[in-house]
């Protein structure tokens, strides 16, 4: 009997193994790669290993010792990988402007020298007497950095290594995170306000009326997100159907600004996410015994009181899990704000996409992505706990 259990278990494992391996390699590993991209900062130390170990002992005053300068010359003359060198130069130049031209002059001189050991850096370029460049070099050496994660939170380290706030006009990540939460909250509230009564209505109806109401929820779910976004584009634009209709019945004289602003984003996202609100609430309400309401009324509660004291508390789990789901999906939204929003409606996903594909700043994209990932995972964990424990009492 025991060997049968074991055989079952190893057979099951054999079946599950391919997916585990596939997702570990192509799902978890990429996520891990993104996280490490935010913290790994070895572009410089990889190219200049000798300098890295030598400059540690320098106190940051004046110019490093002869040995350190020698190590740098040795590293530069040994550096052969064009791409790695380019990345190191870019990293150094972003820390101290002028580093690019400084190295642009130094590297050929070092490589041309018959004996690299005899090269005097200060003679090649007097800027090597400038402490600023050596400080930048030293600070770029540790292979791990908190620079990206601090920058993602609009923070930085000042010259003495203390964490301070970044100037408000340089970076606006906190503002964008706040905006992301705001938009997601607005969409969640809109979905709840529309979705809760709608689910109640659908549950109270029977026959074809209920089918129509449910079909209206499921059909958009089956329609491509791109199609729905393009459709809202058609409806919301200045010459679009909504503005035309409002003008035709004389409600407005000039078109309302409905697109490329917050309103357009919230309308379209509410449309896309409404099914995720309606369906959980609907299934919870269906599980509530119908006679509870009549029982409450027979005991003297009016319909409003019966609703407040009986139906609403019992359907709250559905409302809560629907809201969590909508909020969780909304904070990661990219396509709808990108197509229907203006410059001031871009959410955190757009910023991540900008850093990753626009400027190839994977460190910062990774740090912002990590924040979004952590928030989403926490919400998902809460949602998971919640939807397993959501048992309607008595049902």
């Amino acid at each position, binding site marked *: 009997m025991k060997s049968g259990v074991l055989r079952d*278990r190893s057979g099951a494992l054999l079946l*599950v193994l391919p997916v585990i391996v596939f997702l570990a390699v*192509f799902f978890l590993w990429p996520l891990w790669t993104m996280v490490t991209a935010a913290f790994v900062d070895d572009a410089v130390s990889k190219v200049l290993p000798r300098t890295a170990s030598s400059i540690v002992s320098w106190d940051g005053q004046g110019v490093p010792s002869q040995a350190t300068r020698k190590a740098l010359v040795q590293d530069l003359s040994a550096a052969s990988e064009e791409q790695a060198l380019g990345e190191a130069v870019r990293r150094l130049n972003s820390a101290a402007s002028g580093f690019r031209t400084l190295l642009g002059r130094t590297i050929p001189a070092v490589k041309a020298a018959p004996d690299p050991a005899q090269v005097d850096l200060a003679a090649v370029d007097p800027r090597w007497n400038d402490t600023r460049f050596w400080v930048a070099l030293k600070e770029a050496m540790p292979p791990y950095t908190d620079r990206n994660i601090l920058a993602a939170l609009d923070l930085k380290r000042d010259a003495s290594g203390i964490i301070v706030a970044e100037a408000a006009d340089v970076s606006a990540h906190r503002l964008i995170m706040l905006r992301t939460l705001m938009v997601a909250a607005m969409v969640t509230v809109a979905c709840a306000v529309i979705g809760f009564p709608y689910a109640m209505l659908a549950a109270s109806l029977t026959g074809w009326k209920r089918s129509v109401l449910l079909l209206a929820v499921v059909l958009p779910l089956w329609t491509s997100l791109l199609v729905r976004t393009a459709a809202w584009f058609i409806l919301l634009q200045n010459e679009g159907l909504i503005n035309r209709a409002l003008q035709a019945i004389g409600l407005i004289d000039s078109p309302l600004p409905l697109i490329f602003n917050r309103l357009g984003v919230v309308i379209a996202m509410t449309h896309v996410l409404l099914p995720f609100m309606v369906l959980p609430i609907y299934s919870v309400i269906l599980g509530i015994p119908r006679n509870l309401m009549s029982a409450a009324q027979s005991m003297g509660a009016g319909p409003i009181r019966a609703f407040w004291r009986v139906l609403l508390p019992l359907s709250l789990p559905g409302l809560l899990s629907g809201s969590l789901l909508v909020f969780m999906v909304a904070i990661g939204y990219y396509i709808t704000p*990108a197509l229907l929003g203006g410059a001031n409606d871009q959410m955190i996903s757009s910023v991540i996409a900008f850093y990753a594909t626009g400027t190839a700043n994977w460190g910062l994209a*990774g740090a912002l992505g990590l924040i979004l990932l952590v928030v989403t995972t926490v919400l998902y964990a809460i949602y998971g706990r919640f939807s397993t424990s959501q048992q309607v009492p008595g049902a």
Partner: protein
Amino acid sequence: MFRALQATFGIAVVVFLLMPIFAILPLAFTSSVFLNYPIPAYSMRWMHELTTAEVWRTSILNSLIIGSGATVLATVLGTLASLGMRRGALPMAGLLRTMFLLPMVVPAVVLGVGMQIFLVRLGLASTYLGVIIAHAVLCIPFVIVSVSAALQGIDPTIERAASSLGARPVTVFRRVTLPLAIPGVVSGAIFAFATSLDEVVLTLFVAGPNQRTLARQMFSSIRENISPTVAAAALLLIVGTLCLGGLGALLRWRQGRKTAAAAA
């Protein structure tokens, strides 16, 4: 009074939910160059554009290639996993299930950034294989949900009856379990294909210009130079999804008839 209010609210929400989908479809046949009403005359010019213009034609072809690849990969892996997770023989089954569903939850942009860096390192960036793998990651949860539900619906007594009649485990699986699970596998595959067809964000990160899919092409068309070709592409996508959904429903119906006949 309350009734009228209820009816008005219900109708208003139904209109809100369905209006966009029905508003875009007629524009596939407009003769105007603007993606907007009114439609001056009906014409096939944008459908023609969709099927003849190089960018659109390649993007449709790419969507079919990538969608099929991702569907096959996800369906095979997802079906195997669902079979393995059945009956709870595995330790930590709950944890595994959570991990399998995680790709549905992680924001696409986050996965996109990681995937981009990762595939560049593997040398798979801007290749068909890379895009297919990325899409398959997103499709696997849908297959697992669908196949697991189908397997849960199988009455274990049928399988026990088969083995008590002398069928070996392989035979039980091939002649009893698999035929009963097939509808779940097919609807999982349909979900997977539809997911891949609609995927934009990951594609933006991992695909090169040669792997531009229809959804990706629609995205840039809406962003840059919106034309009624978008409506034509939307019509194509909706008709395609309806056909797939219809196929799934048909299969379920036939299966239902068969089991009903077998039970009778």
